């Protein structure tokens, strides 16, 4: 290696200029480049009240309560307060689900004057409407009257009012403690019997809707009801709950007649609905609204894998359907779940709200009469979908009259109630509808809360998802409505304007709106590789010299500093 000249020494000005150049490049990158890049590529995420959302989804934000007020009218009973106290004690002792409890109240005397109406509002005189609207609504009215002489305690509940007529035995003696206890026990048992199904459903809803069940619902506390019957009930309740349609403010009802051949060609469905179903729909209008349409489809056959078999009445004709013998075609119970031929039957509606289908199926003449094995009504219910009834009209009529359809309409009405989730137990429709309103409020509350929880988890799981302002306003509206709903529940204000049901409905709608915000979905699948492919060709060649020069300069400064310290 040849001997070389050493370069002229680096002047300090040169070194300083170089440092300044590197510094200025870096400052451009850091002060202009980075903020610009950040500003142009950052994703807008509106602030969300995450903590509150989480607490709602955990069920910690609100302990839903369902206080039910029962008015007691006892015009002829001496010292009713004492009796009421005993009954209340008995009820509280027996209740294992504290969120849902009955509260007894002695009706004021002026209720008794006109206390025959179906609801509290109708019984009140106009002057009292003002203070009554502020009061809680009454779940039921218990009327205590002495029964016929020699009879024991009994009660009666009519179909169309919420008055429970309780006839106590005329031998009742308020001064005797035994007699008093027996009446109190009977009253509490009666009330429990009426509201037990609703209580179980609400308890099920509240516990299944939240990931961590509130401790009040399980395990059941010490109570007089046996644990064995309770367990059977949970299965039963689960079965009932699985049938219920998701709540919607509006449902579409489609009545379809599917005939295996070309007859009957007409039916009096309009009149039938008007007469047999409209009263029920009107009664339900406080909870949901309904739109109705109907259709007839000819040459309709059930799913091809559903084949009914021939069952002759007399054993010698067995298996010979061609012979004019008496017998019937039978559909097996296992076939019912696949009975609906969804590929062929035009049952889809374009409405934005859910459709409940009611189908009258009239088999083709070759398969008449068709019956469902083990069914007295020849009808069945498809959970969360609708109801089907197999009708065998007498000898090929071309027109079904209102009378022909009455049976089907009655069944459809019952199926509609159970699809909507009304409890089957007390015969009184107003009480059942009230129950339905409470149950729907609970359902809406849990569904809105769980939607909030899902949104919370989504925003946590996907940091690159954008959150527009509309989502945060929707979430705020949801939270507000949830608060209101919770408050109204505690107040016992379940149905009507500004009630728990309506607030819950708003909450659920807003929560859905927030969760299904369109602009959020588009960002989810933006690939990271894409970014690398775009950035790397520029960042690599530009970044490497910048970085190297920075390292060099820093090394020089450090060396200088060390040299200075040594010197």
């Amino acid at each position: 290696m040849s001997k070389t000249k050493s370069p002229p020494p680096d002047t300090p000005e040169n070194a300083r200029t170089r440092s300044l150049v590197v510094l200025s490049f870096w400052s451009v990158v850091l002060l202009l480049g980075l903020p610009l890049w950040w500003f142009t590529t950052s994703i807008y995420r509106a602030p969300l009240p995450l903590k509150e959302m989480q607490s709602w989804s955990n069920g910690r934000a609100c302990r839903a309560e369902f206080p039910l007020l029962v008015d007691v009218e006892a015009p002829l009973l001496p010292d009713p307060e004492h009796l009421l106290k005993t009954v209340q004690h008995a009820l509280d002792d027996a209740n294992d689900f504290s969120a849902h409890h009955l509260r007894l109240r002695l009706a004021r005397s002026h209720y008794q004057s006109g206390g025959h109406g179906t609801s509290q509002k109708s019984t009140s005189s106009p002057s009292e409407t003002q203070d009554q609207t502020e009061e809680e609504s009454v779940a039921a009215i218990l009327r205590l009257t002495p029964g016929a002489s020699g009879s024991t305690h009994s009660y009666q509940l009519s179909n169309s009012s919420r008055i429970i007529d309780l006839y106590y035995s005329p031998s009742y003696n308020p001064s005797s403690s035994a007699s008093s206890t027996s009446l109190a026990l009977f009253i509490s048992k009666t009330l429990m019997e009426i509201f037990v199904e609703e209580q179980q459903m609400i308890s099920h809803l509240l516990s299944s809707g939240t990931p961590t069940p509130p401790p009040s619902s399980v395990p059941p506390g010490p109570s007089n009801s046996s644990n064995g019957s309770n367990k059977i009930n949970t299965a039963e309740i689960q079965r009932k709950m699985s049938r219920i349609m998701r709540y919607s403010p509006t449902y579409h009802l489609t009545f379809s007649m599917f005939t295996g051949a070309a007859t009957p060609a007409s039916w009096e469905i309009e009149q039938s609905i008007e007469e047999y179903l409209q009263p029920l729909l009107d009664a339900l209008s406080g909870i949901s609204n309904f739109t109705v349409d109907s259709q007839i489809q000819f040459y309709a056959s059930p799913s091809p894998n559903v084949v009914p078999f021939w069952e002759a009445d007399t054993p010698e004709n067995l298996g010979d359907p061609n012979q004019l013998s008496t017998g019937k075609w039978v559909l097996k119970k296992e076939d019912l779940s696949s009975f609906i031929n969804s590929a062929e039957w035009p049952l889809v509606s374009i409405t934005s709200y859910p459709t409940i289908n009611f189908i009258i199926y009239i088999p083709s003449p070759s398969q008449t009469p068709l019956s469902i094995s083990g069914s007295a009504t020849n009808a069945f219910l498809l959970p969360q979908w609708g109801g089907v009834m197999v009708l065998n009209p007498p000898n090929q009529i071309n027109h079904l009259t209102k009378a022909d359809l009455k049976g089907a309409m009655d069944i459809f009405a019952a199926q509609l109630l159970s699809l909507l989730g009304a409890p089957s137990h007390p015969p009184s429709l107003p009480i059942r509808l009230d129950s339905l309103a409470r149950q729907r409020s609970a359902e809406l509350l849990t569904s809105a809360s769980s939607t909030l929880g899902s949104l919370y988890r989504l925003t946590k799981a996907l940091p690159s998802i954008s959150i527009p302002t509309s989502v945060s306003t929707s979430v705020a509206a949801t939270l507000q409505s949830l608060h209101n709903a919770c408050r109204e529940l505690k107040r016992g204000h379940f149905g009507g304007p500004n009630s728990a049901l309506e607030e819950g409905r708003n909450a659920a709608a807003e929560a859905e709106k927030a969760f299904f915000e369109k602009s959020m979905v588009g960002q989810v699948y933006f690939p990271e590789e894409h970014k690398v492919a775009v950035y790397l060709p520029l960042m690599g060649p530009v970044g490497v010299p910048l970085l190297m020069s920075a390292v060099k300069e820093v090394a020089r400064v450090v060396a200088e500093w060390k040299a200075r310290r040594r010197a």
Partner: protein
Amino acid sequence: MKLLRRLIAVVLVASSLLSATTATDSTAKGPTDYDEHLSLKTLPGNAVLASFSFVTNGTFDNHHSVFPRSLAQILEHSHARELHLKFSLGRWDSELWGTPIGKAGGTGVELWAWVEADDDAGADKQWRTLTNALSGLFCASLNFIDGTRTIRPVMSFAPEGHHSEKEMERLHLLHGSLPREPVCTENLTPFLKLLPCKGRAGISSLLDGHKLFDAQWQSMSVVIKPVCDNGRCRLQVEQTVDMVLDIERSLQRRDSPVPKPLPVERLNCDTSKFYGTGDSCFPQTNLGDLPWSLSEIFGRPIKGVCPLARPSREAHVCAIVPAERSIFVSQNSVEIKYPDGTRCFVLPDTADFDVILPQQSPALPLRLELPPLYASRSFTGHGQERGGVQAVLRNPSLTETVDFVYLESLPWFMKPYLHTLRTTLSPASPGFEPIQDLFYRPVLDRARGAHLEAALRIPPNSTLTLSYDFDKSVLRYTEYPPDANRGFDVAAAVITIPKTGFAIRTTSLLLSLPTPDFSMPYNVIILSSTVIALAFGSVFNLLVRRFVGADEVSPRTQRLEEFKERLLAAILRRTRGEKKKME
């Protein structure tokens, strides 16, 4: 299969039992709820035109019997008062087959509707609802009819249904077309489901996707409109299927479902040609009229009458064939002869029905109706930049002048220059002004397409050539379809003759646009990044580096050289060592 046959037999038995009751019912009723009709017409060149028509009447309320609920629901939700939906495939050869079917749409899908709305924005919203709902119902891409494919025709279309003056004020006419849509079985199946008899009985039992879409030309249409007589209104849906079947092809398909070349001895060769010898075969054109029957060309006979159409007691099947040609039909059907030579048949209640036409040689001459207008349209222009369109319209009549409206709905990437719009008459007739009226709505990029509507007139026995130039836009990278090199379809021009309400369509056009290389964005990114990096690197190095003479290299660089040498030596040693080990 056996089971199916039995089921059908059973259904037919059932309907026969019913005939007595329905016959008495029909007298009491007014217009029947459902009617169907099939007309068969022989065309030159051994073709048959089969026209199916199904008319269903319904009410305006929510309770439907034969009227399809799905359609009624769509109308209700989109506030559409009248709707025309057409699916077509193939080209009607009017030189050979005569007057085209006036109801048929252009190739692909065509939709127009009168929608009730307060203003244009409202109408657009309802239109979007309508296209989306129909798209779901008919399994067609109708949801792709967006603002760029929608026009509001001014002169071409008039409502067919009855709308009061007051209603008409609030109705908006919108028109959209999808020339590229391949019409196929998935569109036929929902179409059949709308019929009350669903292809199980009546003439609809002939409709089968394999035969329909094997036709030379076919068109399906759905027209929904309110119909009033004597103040009583009803909602009517008219479904039609028109198809031109090539008999020779259908018969061949019957023999071998998979098309196979015929053996030489079975080919019909024209041996009269001096050049048609040996191994070459020129097809014979005058074969005579081939024999055919319904079950041969459709694959099955008609399965009895549809019980719901029976009350009308009319002939459901008519044949329009030369009077000299004999027609055989199945038993139990009644033949009705009309003075114009049409022969109609009342279908039997239960039994299968077939129409058989025997061989006729030599072929009988067919009287063809002259169409009021011959129309063809093609591209002119050259290169990737300059485009031109030329429409040739011929009036074959020797006496009548034709007044018509020519409508073009062009995609937004085709930008016509209106000043280049030219009409040429041949033979020239001085002083005759072919353009009576003109409506033009220019393109808005990516928002709406061009809409050209011209009221034209052609003197007798003349040809009018309409031409204009257009620019091809450059599309964005994402706006190209997956098969970008195929080109873009331009919807058929609609020619309507207002006096008669007759409409014909030209064929659709295939426009090729400059197609980029689709890896381009990445190439651009990498190339421009390289340029920037080069520029940046040299400027940066000039500013930061210290420049010294070649003989003034600093000892630090020497150290680097030494390090390099040592590293090289170490690597060499190691590889040698490994080689030794291997040995």
